[in-house]
């Protein structure tokens, strides 16, 4: 009986770590391959007689070429500016809306909450075409401003929905006691609620920044001049066609473009997972 149980436990452990190894290999191999490619000299990269996974003389040439001969740094700056502005705008607007919908009673607040939830589900590919039409009529076509005002359309619903959950978790008595002491609602919000909400706001901001950094469809259609492109569209539309034997620098670009996101989120993994599952787990 005892040995049977122990045997069961051992087989289970073996299966678990076998499964873990399987997912690590499958999910991370592409990154390994991108990294190896980015530091392999061209002579090794295109030499079919060499085993592909090994590396003899690592080099930074591809990175140097990327920085010196392409507009990578410009696109990096563009991405940072667009993501920062649209995240900032969306957090402010989203926090106010979330507070109102989670806390204040007024006619239609329920319906508004549901409507915002529905907009959160709308994929950008459904709306990019008429949006381009509207942006053109506003005279903003092919500008970075176009991205800064269109990104909030998917960031605000997301932030609002996420932050509503956080607001509901904060006891009402906290602000009520502040209001008994003579504070207005907005003062109570600023002095009492927002400091408690800070972790929630940070996680919403982090998530929003990731979403805007990764955005592709709007950037592809609304910002077409090479100098105003963001990192993903710049790399995909300007670098891919440039040269057939360009894979080293291309992989360097793809990795460097992903690093800020991976870096940010490694510090805030807990928040990130909470944010990602907030919609799913709590509904």
């Amino acid at each position: 009986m005892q040995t049977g149980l122990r045997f069961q436990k051992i087989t289970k452990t073996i299966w678990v770590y076998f499964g873990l190894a399987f997912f690590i290999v499958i999910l991370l191999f592409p990154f390994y391959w991108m990294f190896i490619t980015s530091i392999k000299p061209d002579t090794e990269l295109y030499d079919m007689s060499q085993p592909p996974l090994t590396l003899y003389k690592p080099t930074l040439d591809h990175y140097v070429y990327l920085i010196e001969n392409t507009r990578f740094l410009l696109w990096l700056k563009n991405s940072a500016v667009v993501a920062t502005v649209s995240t900032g705008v969306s957090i402010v607007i989203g926090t106010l809306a979330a507070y109102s919908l989670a806390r204040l009673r007024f006619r239609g607040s329920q319906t508004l909450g549901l409507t915002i939830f529905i907009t959160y589900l709308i994929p950008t590919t459904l709306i990019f075409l008429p949006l381009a039409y509207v942006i053109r009529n506003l005279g903003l076509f092919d500008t970075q401003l176009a991205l800064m005002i269109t990104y909030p359309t998917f960031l605000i619903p997301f932030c609002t929905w996420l932050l509503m959950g956080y607001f509901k978790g904060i006891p009402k008595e906290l602000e009520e006691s502040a209001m008994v002491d003579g504070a207005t609602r907005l003062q109570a919000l600023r002095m009492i609620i927002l400091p408690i909400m800070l972790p929630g706001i940070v996680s919403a901001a982090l998530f929003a920044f990731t979403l805007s950094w990764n955005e592709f469809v709007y950037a592809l259609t609304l910002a077409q001049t090479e100098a105003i492109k963001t990192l993903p569209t710049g790399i995909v539309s300007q670098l891919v066609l440039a040269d057939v034997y360009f894979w080293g620098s291309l992989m360097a670009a793809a990795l460097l473009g992903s690093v800020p996101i991976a870096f940010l989120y490694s510090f805030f993994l807990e928040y990130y997972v909470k944010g990602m599952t907030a919609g799913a787990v709590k509904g």
Partner: protein
Amino acid sequence: MQATTAQERPSPTSQTFMQRLSAWFNQERILGPALVAPAVLILLVLIAYPFCIAIWLSMTDKVIARSDTGNFIWFANFTKLFKDSIFQRTTMNTFNYALVSVFFKLVLGLVMALVLDEVRFFKNFFRGILLLPWIVPTSLSALGWLWMFDSQFSVLNRLLLDWGLISEKIIWLGTPATAMFSVQLVNIWRGIPFFGISLLAGLQAIPQELYEAADIDGARAWSKFWNVTFPLLMPVTAVVTLFSIVQTFADFQIVYVLTRGGPVNSTHLFATLTHQTAILAGRLGEGAAVSIFMFPVLVIAVVLQLRYLQKDN
């Protein structure tokens, strides 16, 4: 009369205009709508209004090359699309792409969640690195796959050949069947962590006592999964799957980067065909009509989600 009663009370007279304004603004029925207004305004101008424009555009023959607003042609774009072989192909592709990908993402994501739930060492570390495919920009990781699928230097081919798993090179993106398989593969790769981590959160929300009770009843592992884990995980699974169906159905980046819809339209999805027709070929009206076909799936998903939310409350 009113004025004298007001003057008899000491405090209101000492109120300045600003104080009264702030008291008025402090009422829930005023402050509430005021605080949501900016969000509603942006969504009205940049979601609701464009959506109406899309419906109107889909009934015109507007092209980018001409600056006029186009002629209103009722449903001519749609009848044209129904007879168009590329559109028929795209419809089949989209359903194939979405259903197959979501199925494998769900199954493998569930396995990943069950595995991660049992891992005892460096839990957060593993959870962190396994989420990478989901958080990095899809367009950039798709470039990595483009290189892995390269017709000449594909590392996948070289490894599979070396290990003797295939006898000749697979032309990943070059034939209709393999191209669809390849874009699905990338979509599944990107989506597994989303399912895995979300379902893991769902698993960890199941109270431990239920398992202990099952143990006392002498339940076997399989019956514990079937009678405790599965039913309690259902709600999360439903929400995550619905969300994924909507997103996968409207997917764009992977196909755009890897195949641009080719070869011979075998991987075109509604979203890439919309882009191709409206932006690249300049037929705005027809492109808008294609994009409308992404709408019904969204509506179904939203209705199901709302029904679930109501049940939850």
